[in-house]
């Protein structure tokens, strides 16, 4: 039994091709790059599963894909809202996140304690709850538009993750670099500016690009305060036309395509920005 399992696993591994070929192993007859191979395998598996589900569902559910086309305008507007919320959030979250990340490693204990508290509090509350807290809670004191509330809530949330990315990026630069800078006579701020940050940024940027993917996915939660992003548009189409599966499948597909493209861009950045040494 165990052998069969191992056999199946080995077969799957050989499909995905993650085992890097050792130089003494014979080369495969035709060699696709590992990435292409993976994309093909993932595509085949996804389409297969989709087809099984689709044919299963078709027995009891009649698909009307045309409805999606009829609602192309609302979907387009929803897409623009999603994009706008995500992009604006990312800009603010990077600014706030970088500041908090720097505060986190500050020599001033009060500052680093504050940043630490912020990160830990925000990271341990679900985003959905934060969105409601901001819109209903803070909104009760300072009335704000849904869009603003969404951006504020998402910014708070994502900034705490970006702060950790920034902190980790800066701390990953070896202590010797700081010593070298300080020993030449640079102040700690100058050392940070000329020596540590330029190196840290190369490690931070790919992670930030990855965070953008997360922001886009997380932004789907703002539908809870009735901001008409693509997710809420889908929900509305679902309820008005009863074309529930079409709409939800379309949205899943939509997020998937955007996020896959962005993740590939992230991988590309990782390869393009090597940190020397």
């Amino acid at each position: 039994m165990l052998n069969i399992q191992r056999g199946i696993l080995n077969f799957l591994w050989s499909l995905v091709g993650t085992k890097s070929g050792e130089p003494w192993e014979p080369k495969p007859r035709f060699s696709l790059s590992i990435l292409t191979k993976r994309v093909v395998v993932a595509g085949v598996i996804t389409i297969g599963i989709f087809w099984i589900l689709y044919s299963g569902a078709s027995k009891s559910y009649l698909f009307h894909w045309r409805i999606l086309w009829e609602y192309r305008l609302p979907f387009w507007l929803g897409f623009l809202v999603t994009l706008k919320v995500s992009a604006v959030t990312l800009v603010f979250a990077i600014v706030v996140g970088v500041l908090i990340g720097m505060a986190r490693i500050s020599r001033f204990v009060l500052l680093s304690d504050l940043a630490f508290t912020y990160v830990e509090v925000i990271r341990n509350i679900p985003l959905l709850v934060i969105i409601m807290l901001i819109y209903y809670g803070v909104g009760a004191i300072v009335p704000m538009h849904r869009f603003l509330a969404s951006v504020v809530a998402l910014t708070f949330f994502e900034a705490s993750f970006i702060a950790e990315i920034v902190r980790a990026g800066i701390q990953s630069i070896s202590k010797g670099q700081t010593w070298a800078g300080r020993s030449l006579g640079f102040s700690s701020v100058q050392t940070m500016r000329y020596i540590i940050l330029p190196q840290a940024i190369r490690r931070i940027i790919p992670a930030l690009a990855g965070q953008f993917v997360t922001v886009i996915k997380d932004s789907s939660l703002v539908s809870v305060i009735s901001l008409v992003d693509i997710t809420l548009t889908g929900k509305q189409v679902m309820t008005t036309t009863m074309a529930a599966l079409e709409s939800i499948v379309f949205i899943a597909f939509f997020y998937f395509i955007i996020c896959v493209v962005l993740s590939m861009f992230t991988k590309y950045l990782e390869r393009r920005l090597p940190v020397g040494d």
Partner: protein
Amino acid sequence: MIKAEKVNKWYGDFHVLKDFSLEVREGEVVVVCGPSGSGKSTFLRAVNGLETVQSGSIHVYGVRVNDPKTDLNTLRTKIGIVFQDFNIFPHMTVLQNISLAPIKLLKMSQKDAELLGHSLLQKVGIPEKWNAFPSQLSGGQKQRVAIARALAMQPKAMMFDEPTSALDPEMIKEVLDVMKTLAREGMTMIVVTHEMGFAREVANRIVFIDEGSVIEEGSTEQFFKNPSHMRTKLFLSKIL
């Protein structure tokens, strides 16, 4: 010029420097040796304030290092330090590594700083590498860039923290040669090293330290021919 008196430092419970005293005069080349963990590197870093000490005093050119009122940034421009693992800036070319500090701190023009950089590269024997990135250099070349970078600030003294310990044997000589040239030009130097050949050739004085304090201190000749402590003899017998 550099004077440490009864310096004590602890890392938690670990007593790294115990009543450590050492004086280095202008133009002197002092080699510091001793087993690893004896506090040699910590002492060098304490001299330019990269490490704080808990008691005692360190004076550099009459300025007290371990005094909160001292402008350490200005003081550090007067002493260059070269590290065991080079610590050159991987995101800059060789020339940028060398010219960064003169441009930003001495307010030198870009052109002058680059001229200075080229002449220092000439001096350390790799003028053709000015436009290379550190990842394209060998260890010995990196260390020579590090020396040139420190020299670009025109320091009055240079400290070397085991500059050849991370190098392949064939690269050690090229680094030591640069250091010898510096010594001959009259640079004040404190060199932490186990290269006893180098010590014999250029050191005016050798200091042997163990467990955070100076065990033996004497002229180079006396140190090799006639060490007075058992501990020194034992150490020499192991490394010579």
